[in-house]
Every structure is written in structure tokens, then in C-alpha cells.
């Protein structure tokens, strides 16, 4: 392990960790709506700017729609650009999500995953992450506070790379990660990270002395070709993402990959999960293994582009796959992650038994008892969907 940057171990919550990552990335522009459902992330960053520790433009806008619109302009002008939001805020950004990716900006957004209203909730669901899944943003899921910090730094390097040029979302579970304090290791200062993440070299940036058109009109004669180019470019990003994971490992000593597997290779039952619940499931699976259950956990660090081949390869010989969704896709054949996993398996000619487990909506604490309920459900061949830990 060849650690280059000097690091320090301390206790931070997820919000502070992400704020430190954006600070260490030496962002130029932070554009954010500072009120609910915003997290503390941008509040911390505004303090760094106010104290003079971070030389950045902090644009406090009047809505999330404007937050992302301003971020698009800043990113196209060549600035290293950061924003953060959650739930309803992401929903209000929706129109601009597609513009940000289709104009090939390099914005990094932290998303403190929270439930959509109604009822008004503000606690953890993955509604917001899933809502952005088709928009052409790279999406990472952090399972703990360390990953929230690391993936934010990784996201800047990925999104600004000339072979990528797509914006990134770093997901961290609302409250469960944003508000919990955990130990993590961060770089001592922003100068320690410069070698991994040098100043941005923007491509085709806005230059008043050399005006070009961004976001032009493209009617039926060209729109489809442009979209196909965008699709090919987006689908080619995982190769570069994996390289950046390796570069970050050399630099920090911490390794990342698109998916994480525990006991998957010889498992009869595998639980597929996103975010902070992965750690709870790993703990449960280790316990069940001692009782002779051949169980495993597969969690995704890279959610978009969806690592279809790797997921299908990992799950191809598994009897029963429980796909856990912290959201509900009304009227769909299953939850959002369930549909991804089913489609990925189908693409590679596999038709395993799938169970969709809906869990943790609106911050419902996911307990060992609920995990036991899921394991129990796998024993009944008639069960294809369960709502875990729900009354009535």
C-alpha cells in the first residue's frame, strides 16, 4: 500500500465528511438552496468560504431548480462545481438534471437520500436517487461516512475526466449517514489531495472571446444521433471509473470497486442492497453462515451506469435473490433495483428466482428482526414480494 497523501483519523458525520471532501477538492463554485430539505453539507461549506479557508463562490439561490441551473453555467465556464440536495429538492431539479448531463457538465452533487412527500417525512428512502436514475448522471452509493468522503473526491476526478464529462451524484442515506458520527480517515488538507485531483482542465469552456453555442436546438433530423452518442459515451464511463478507483487506492490506501460481494460465490441466497443497510446485512449474513445458511450479500457502489455484466456474473448461479428496495415504484413489475437486477440477469440469459423486499421507507429503522423476516420469506416459494417490518 503506497499512501501518498497525509491523512488524519477523526469522527465526523456524513454531512461534515462530504463538506470536507468538497473543501479538499478545492471547489470553485458551490451553488445550493440552503433550506429544508437541504442537509448541513452546504452550511459547512459556507463556513469554509466565509472563514476564508476555501476560495470559492458560494451562490445561495432561491430554489433547487436555480441551484442546479447556476451549477450548469459554472461547470460549463470551467469551474469545479458542487451542489447538494435531498428528496423534494432533487425533484425540483428534475428538468435541469437532464440538461446538466446532456451538456456534459462535470458537476458533483451530494444527495442525502430522503423520502418524497406525501406524507411529509424528510427521513431516508431512495426515492430521490431512483428519480435521477435515467438522467445520465453517474451515481455512487456510500455505505458509511468514510465512503461518502472518498466517493465525493472520486466523483470530481471521474466527472471532470475528458473521457467521461458527465455529472455525478454521491448518495448517502439521510440521517443514517448524514447525521451519524463515525470514525474516518481524511486527508490533512487540500494540498494533500492536489496530486490526485489537480485543478480542473475544462474542455470547450465558456469563453467570451471565443463564443460557441451550448444547448442548441436539434430537431428530429439530429436529436436521435446526439442521444445515441451520449448513450455510448455514458456507457463507456465504467472503464475510466474503475481506473480512478485504482488511482484513489494508490493515493489513499482504500480500495473501491463497482460492487461489493460477501460470500456470494457459493451462496444459495443473496441479498442485493444499496447504501447503509449493506453493513447491517453483512453482519446478519455472517451470523446466518454460522448456522449453516448459504447466504451472501451483494451491494453496489456504482449504481449508474448499472454494472449489469458484473451483477449477472456474480448472481448467475444463485437460487434465490432478494433485491432490497428502499422505495416503491408504483405500478411497475417490481422495485427500481429489482427491475435493474432482473433485466441484468435476463440480458445474460439467467432467470433466477427473485424476491423484492421493500424496506426502510421514510426512515423506518432496518433491524435484525426484519432481516430475519426476509430470510424466512426465502423459504416460501410462493413469496415474490414482501414489505419488511410493516404493520397490517
Amino acid at each position, binding site marked *: 500500500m503506497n499512501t501518498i497523501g497525509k491523512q488524519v483519523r477523526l469522527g465526523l458525520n456524513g454531512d461534515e465528511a462530504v463538506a470536507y471532501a468538497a473543501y479538499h477538492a478545492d471547489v470553485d463554485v458551490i451553488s445550493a438552496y440552503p433550506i429544508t430539505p437541504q442537509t448541513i453539507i452546504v452550511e459547512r461549506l459556507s463556513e469554509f468560504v466565509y472563514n476564508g479557508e476555501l476560495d470559492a463562490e458560494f451562490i445561495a439561490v432561491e430554489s433547487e431548480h436555480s441551484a442546479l441551473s447556476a451549477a450548469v453555467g459554472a461547470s460549463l465556464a470551467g469551474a469545479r462545481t458542487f451542489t447538494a440536495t435531498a428528496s423534494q429538492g432533487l425533484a425540483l431539479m428534475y428538468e435541469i438534471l437532464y440538461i446538466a448531463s446532456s451538456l456534459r457538465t462535470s458537476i458533483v452533487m451530494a444527495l442525502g437520500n430522503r423520502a418524497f412527500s406525501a406524507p411529509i417525512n424528510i427521513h431516508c428512502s431512495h426515492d430521490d436517487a431512483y428519480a435521477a436514475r435515467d438522467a445520465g448522471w453517474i451515481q455512487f452509493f456510500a455505505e458509511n461516512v468514510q465512503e461518502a468522503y472518498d466517493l465525493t473526491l472520486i466523483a470530481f476526478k471521474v466527472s471532470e475526466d475528458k473521457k467521461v464529462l458527465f455529472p455525478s451524484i454521491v448518495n448517502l442515506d439521510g440521517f443514517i449517514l448524514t447525521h*451519524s*458520527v*463515525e*470514525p474516518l480517515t481524511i486527508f490533512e488538507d487540500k494540498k494533500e489531495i492536489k496530486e490526485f485531483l489537480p485543478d480542473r482542465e475544462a474542455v470547450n469552456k465558456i469563453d467570451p472571446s471565443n463564443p460557441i453555442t451550448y444547448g442548441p436546438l436539434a430537431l428530429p433530423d439530429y436529436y436521435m444521433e446526439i442521444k445515441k452518442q451520449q448513450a455510448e459515451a455514458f456507457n463507456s464511463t465504467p472503464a475510466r471509473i474503475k481506473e480512478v478507483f485504482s488511482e484513489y487506492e494508490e493515493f489513499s490506501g482504500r480500495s473501491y470497486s463497482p460492487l461489493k460481494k460477501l460470500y456470494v460465490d457459493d451462496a444459495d441466497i443473496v441479498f442485493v442492497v444499496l447504501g447503509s443497510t449493506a453493513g447491517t446485512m453483512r453482519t446478519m449474513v455472517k451470523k446466518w453462515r454460522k448456522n449453516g445458511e448459504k447466504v451472501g450479500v451483494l451491494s453496489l457502489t456504482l449504481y449508474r451506469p448499472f454494472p449489469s455484466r458484473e451483477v449477472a456474473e456474480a448472481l448467475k448461479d444463485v437460487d434465490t435473490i432478494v433485491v432490497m428496495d428502499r422505495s416503491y415504484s408504483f405500478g411497475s413489475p417490481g422495485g427500481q433495483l429489482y427491475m435493474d437486477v432482473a433485466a441484468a440477469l435476463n440480458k445474460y440469459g439467467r432467470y433466477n428466482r427473485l424476491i423484492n423486499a421493500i424496506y426502510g421507507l421514510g426512515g423506518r429503522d432496518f433491524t435484525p428482526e426484519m432481516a430475519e423476516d426476509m430470510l424466512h420469506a426465502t423459504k416460501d416459494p410462493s413469496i415474490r414480494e414482501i414489505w419488511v417490518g410493516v404493520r397490517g
Partner: protein
Amino acid sequence: MIEVRWHGRGGQGTVTSSQLLANAAIYEGKYAIHIPEFGPERRGAPVRSYTRISDEVIEIRYGVINPDIVVVIDPTLLAYKDIILAGLKEDSIIIFNHTDPSNAKPLEGYESYAVDAYHIAMEIIGRPIYNTAMIGALVGVTGIVRLESLEEAVRKRFSGVLADINIKAVRRGAKEVIKVE
């Protein structure tokens, strides 16, 4: 792994207590997690918070269900036994705030400790902010972190005079807590 559950009311520093304890453990190189439980954020509403401390990586992310230690910051919450005693194990201990510790009684036969955090807070801080005296009591009884580590966490959280008076409250809580017989 040691699991702590904190009971208080909004505005009494319940979440801060759990956070300070987790940070103290992290300074010692241990693994720890502080999990606040957010209900409606209102002054006076009952609030719970959880701390886990371990020598190994902590991967679980749910609230503490079967605490080893329960700390009751707000004395009026002692009346709600179903909440305070929920999930306790036979050998769990309870540390509570009581204006007359020498006349306090153990809760339902559990190993109990009491400290007069009210008077400590009023004498040192001048306001009924009980939490730092209660964390001091927890460390005094259990030694799950060193008092110096806790003081370091307090010093990083508060500045100047506020740090000094809270450290005083921590020390008095640690010294004055007694076992209730």
C-alpha cells in the same frame, strides 16, 4: 461492543452527549458510532440517541435495541418505565439524574447509579443543561472511555469558557455519581 442508549428531552443536549462519547472513543483509536434518533425537533419533546463503542469495525446501522447502558438525562422521563427499560438485558445498567441520589432507588432491580446533574449544572453552568454532568457520570461508573478523552471531545466541541465549564461539569459528574442501593 458496548451499546448505550440516551434518554432526554429536546434542548438538553441528548444528541450532543452521544456524539461526545463517540468522539472520545474515536480519539482513543476505537471504533464508535453515534446515532441520533430524530423525531419532531422540538424543545421539551422526548429524544433518544445511541452510541456504540467497539474494538472492531462497526457495520450495523440501526438504533440500539438491547442497550448495555441506559443514561436518563431528564429525571421526569423516569416515570416512563416502558420506554426507559425497553430491551434491557439482565446485566444492563441504568445511570440517571436525581436531585437526591442518596435516597434514590434502583429501577426495577437493575444495577442503578444516580447523580445530581441538576445541581451540578445550576452551580457550574447556571442553566439546567444536564448532559455533560451525565456523560461524566457514565464515564465515572463504566470507564468505557478515559476522562481525558472525553475532555478532549468537549474541548473540540465547545470553545473558551463554555469548554471550561462543561469540563468542570464532566469531572463533577464522574466524581459525584453513586451506586443506588
